[in-house]
Each structure stands twice: as structure tokens, then as C-alpha cells.
């Protein structure tokens, strides 16, 4: 029933958030068969991430998304602190 890597959700943290959390890349087990729909908001709470999620931007599969956009098994979810490029 699929590879474990496809079943899980990859979660990435960056910059200050990564350092505060103490990790930057984690696998969240979420079997494809599970009927439950997960959202970034739920995962933020479940992972007990530091600070408030409202100051973060969210990306699912490297595209900006909303806190309540569903995250599916096999997805890559990232929490992005305020960016500053250029």
C-alpha cells in the first residue's frame, strides 16, 4: 500500500523557526489509507512549534498555502518565517 515516504508528510522549518524548534526536517506519519484530513494549523499544534503560527507563511509542495489548506500524505509542508531576499 505505497512506500512509507509517500505515506508520510515531510515538514520543513527555516531560519529562526528552525533554530527555535531545534529541527528543520521531520517526517510525520500519515498513512494514505487514513481518512482524516490534516491541516498546517493542526500540524503546527501537534508538533508543538514555538511562537505563533500567524506570523508564519505556509507552503505545501513548495507553493504558498493557507493554514487550513488540507495536507495529504506525500505532501511537503513548510513553515516559513518572514522572508527577506534581494
Amino acid at each position, binding site marked *: 500500500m505505497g512506500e512509507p515516504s509517500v505515506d508520510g508528510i515531510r515538514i520543513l522549518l527555516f*531560519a529562526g523557526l528552525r533554530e527555535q524548534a531545534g529541527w528543520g526536517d521531520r517526517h510525520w506519519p500519515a498513512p494514505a489509507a487514513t481518512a482524516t484530513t490534516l491541516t498546517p494549523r493542526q500540524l503546527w499544534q501537534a508538533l508543538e512549534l514555538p511562537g505563533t503560527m500567524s506570523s508564519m507563511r505556509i507552503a505545501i509542495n*513548495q507553493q504558498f498555502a493557507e493554514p487550513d489548506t488540507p495536507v495529504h500524505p506525500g505532501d511537503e509542508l513548510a513553515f516559513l518565517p518572514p522572508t*527577506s*531576499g534581494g
Partner: protein
Amino acid sequence: MQLRIDLHATAFEPLACLEQWQRQLAVQGHNGSAAESLFIGRVRPAAADGALLVALELEHYPGMTERQLRQLATACCRRHGASSCLVQHRIGRVLPGEAIVLVAIGADRRGPAQRCCQELLEALKHEAPFWKREWRADGSSAWLTGNTPL
């Protein structure tokens, strides 16, 4: 539309990149645009709080950064009818005086070229997954949570 985006893990020379870009465009039969608007950004010698800056560290989200830059550049150039777009951006540890970003937009008129260059610069400052950390002379460091004012 001619588009090229590169992330550089080590120092890049803006003028050398522009020369290479010019040659690449010429090979593809694209002669010099009537109007070309360019921007080069370099690391300041001082941190946001005025302390001496030793280096600026640029973290990014591999994969998403390239994808996002491509989306932003494509949309911006389409909006303004630009015909060529070069974006060069540093990642990693950047020293004071070194270039962080180069944007070069070619268009048929100066207005669209200038507006496209400005808009794309703002877009990549605010909409691309880059993070800056300032390293000070005393060994301390701090993540920036925004850009310098326009």
C-alpha cells in the same frame, strides 16, 4: 520571453554575469533591447542596528526558491511586456560589498523596463523564500524579519 535565474553559492560578479547574459541572448538571436533596466544590490558594511557587519548569511528553501523566482519573474515580465529577464541571487555567506542580487530587464520602452525591474525586485524581496542572518563582529548573529525600507 528570455528568462534566466541562477542562485550562486559563492561570490558572483554582476558585470561578468551581464556579459554572459548578453552573449546568450545574442546567440539566441535576441539583439539588445531598446530599454534595459538593471539593479544590483550589495551587502552593507553595517548591521541593521549599526554594528559592524562581518557577513550576511542567506538561507533559502531549495527547490521552492527557484520555482518561486521563476513564477514571480514570468508573471512580472508578462504584466509589463518585458522581453528578457535575468535574475542572479546569492545564497550562503555573503561578505560586505559582495553582490546579493542582480536583476536585468529588457523591454521595448523605458517605462515598462523600469517598472518591471522595480516590481520584480520588490517581489523577490517579499515573496521568495530567502532569510537573512546578520553576523556581527562580536560573534553574535540575528535573523532579520524584514527588508530595509524602500
